[in-house]
């Protein structure tokens, strides 16, 4: 589904990603771990199309289509979804109006008619239940006054509503207490299917106890230095990132 080859990207002239390769198939969940500053969030933002991140080399294909030449909105319409590490509060934009606009623009892109008001509201109800997101959304502004946990859960709720092919969760676990973490993970697990794929970016192994990945990759210094199954996450937890730094350093030396 997603094929990343030799991806180089920089922010404000500083190279962060230095030749990253990653292959993801439908139905898979890939965890990306790594120490601070290794480029985890940069990867998420580059895939979503944030303009301050400049791709200098490499390619990213989504089902054979060049993702990098698309605008952020077209990437979303093609099925890429980034659950933000820090969701933005937008006072004055209502949650419902925002979601409806998003869904209808995606539908229009696919040549579908706008969603019926009743169908939309039923869908909101159903998906809120599915991801256990009880916050009252009607007449409330987007993320305004939401707690940190509510904002993250709203991201998962949006994910449920937009039904993307590829979802990237950027440190969705940061700032969550254990109960909120469980709820978020349960929501994600409900949404997993053979047709979609997830990239779970996280700093800690904790989240992966609840969202069990098929593959774990360790990102260090802008490249994936180690890949494995979920056991790799446990090993990392045990040995710490210094282990990676040492071994990666040694490999580089060779």
């Amino acid at each position, binding site marked *: 589904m997603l094929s990343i080859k030799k991806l180089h990207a920089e922010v404000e002239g500083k190279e962060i990603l230095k030749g990253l390769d990653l292959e993801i198939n439908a139905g898979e969940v890939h965890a990306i771990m790594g120490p601070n500053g290794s480029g985890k969030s940069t990867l998420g933002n580059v895939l979503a199309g944030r303009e301050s991140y400049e791709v200098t080399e490499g390619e990213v294909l989504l089902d054979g289509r060049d993702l990098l030449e698309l605008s*952020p*909105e077209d990437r*979303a319409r093609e099925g890429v979804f980034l659950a933000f590490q820090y969701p*933005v509060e937008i006072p004055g934009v209502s949650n419902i109006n*925002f979601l409806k606009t998003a869904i209808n623009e995606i539908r229009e892109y696919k040549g579908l008619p706008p969603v019926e008001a009743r169908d939309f509201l039923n869908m909101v109800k159903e998906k809120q239940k599915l991801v256990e997101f009880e916050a009252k959304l009607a007449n409330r502004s987007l993320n305004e006054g939401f707690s940190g946990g509510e904002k993250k859960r709203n991201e998962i709720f949006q994910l449920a509503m937009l039904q993307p092919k590829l979802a990237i969760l950027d440190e969705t676990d940061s700032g969550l207490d254990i109960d909120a973490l469980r709820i978020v993970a349960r929501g994600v697990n409900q949404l997993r299917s053979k047709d979609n794929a997830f990239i779970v970016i996280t700093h800690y192994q904790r989240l992966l106890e609840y969202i069990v990945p098929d593959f774990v990759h360790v990102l260090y210094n802008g490249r994936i230095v180690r890949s494995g199954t979920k056991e790799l996450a446990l090993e990392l937890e045990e040995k710490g990132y210094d282990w990676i730094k040492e071994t990666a350093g040694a490999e580089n030396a060779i």
Partner: protein
Amino acid sequence: MIGLKRQLVRKTQYKHKGDTIEREEATTVVDEALAEIGSNGGLTKQTMITQVTDSLYKQLIRAYEERMPTEEGPHSLDEIRGQAFKRFEKLGFPTVKHEDWKYTNVQPLISQNYLLDTSTSQAEVAIGKAAIPNLDTYRVVLVDGIFNAELSSGIDVPGLHILPIQEAFDQLSFAKYFAEYADKTDNPFVALNTALFKSGVFITVTKNSVLEKPIHIIHVASATEPLFTQTRNLYVIEANAEAELIESFITEDNAANNLNSLVSEIVVHENAKLHHYYLQLAGKQSSYINHTEIYQKKYSLYNNYNCSFPGSAFVRNNINVRLDDSQVESHLYGVTLTAGNQFVDNHTVVDHLKPHCESYEWYKNITQDTSTAVFNGKIFVRLDAQKTNAFQQNNNMLIGEKSAIYTKPQLEIFADDVKCSHGCTIGQFDNQALFYLRSRGISEAQARVLLVHAFAFDVTNRFANATVRKYVEHLVEQGLENG
């Protein structure tokens, strides 16, 4: 060059201060001087501008001298007009040297030639541009300032009296309030308007009447030759009455340039409520210099919602509220969305004269392209006005890289036991928010519309009338698309 031009303008201005004859002599001297400069330095064009400015001034003086004394009505109206004209002669047209007109240069407007009569007004005008979907109203249509009975409709209801102002001169309540408020300010356009207005409406909402529908006044500019209109309105909301008043400004597509001076005096009596909307929708050819003076009595409420949209080349609004009794509440809201090379200036005064009153003001400006917006809000809390609660906020969003915003929030407090605050912000689009919306599949254009709505939300969500609010939100959307 610019320095010289200003100097010329000031000279002319100075001449305005003398009486008519002296002034004309003096003007000749200036003209000679200009001719000299013209031959030496090639400034002929500017000389012409000064002369033309002069001619509108002359034209107005002639119009004043030639006008017939008011036939019906009290003799005192002539006196009021006479005094007002003297004031105007003394003040002259304002220049950018005046603090209140610092960013608002009226010289290009008054240096054009205008007709002063409505001989080229169109008999048939379309008012569709002012239609507010799903809103049933009592409709009052003024074409180039003149009440049009055929286009007006449904206004014959109990509790509501609407009269063309020229038919109201003999009414007691007219004489009681006319020129009692606006003329106490030093706005030269008010003095000129009082002296020379020809038309307008006098509206009374009678004691204890609660109007079912809003009154919708549609101001249409239609004349096919350049026209200078001076319209005068007086609105009296009697004790315990409640009304909504919506004023829309539109322009006929084939109208020539027009300059409109509109002065409205509003008296809100004890325990009365008035919600007053201004919807500026006029075309590029139309320019406005409006003055609204509100006088409030005990327990009264006055809310003004002042909205300007892309179109009219030049808009200046003065909105002054005098809270001259205790327990008075006033709200001033503004949304200004500009585009092209438009200029919109809102000057407000909230004058707390008595204790235990509350005022709340919130203006939002959004400028696109090379347009300019000005906000000047002044709150006075006079010595007597203890326990005043006054709030003022102005937020600005610059969209056009070459657009400009001038803002000046002012607070003058003479009492010592009050709660007052004012603030102002200037910013651009929030790129984080823009990216967030786009990352969910929303196009950049639509995301901008959502964010501008969000920016205006603090103000639009205060609109008392939900239908008008929806309409204004739609106009904002339209104004962004076309901008």
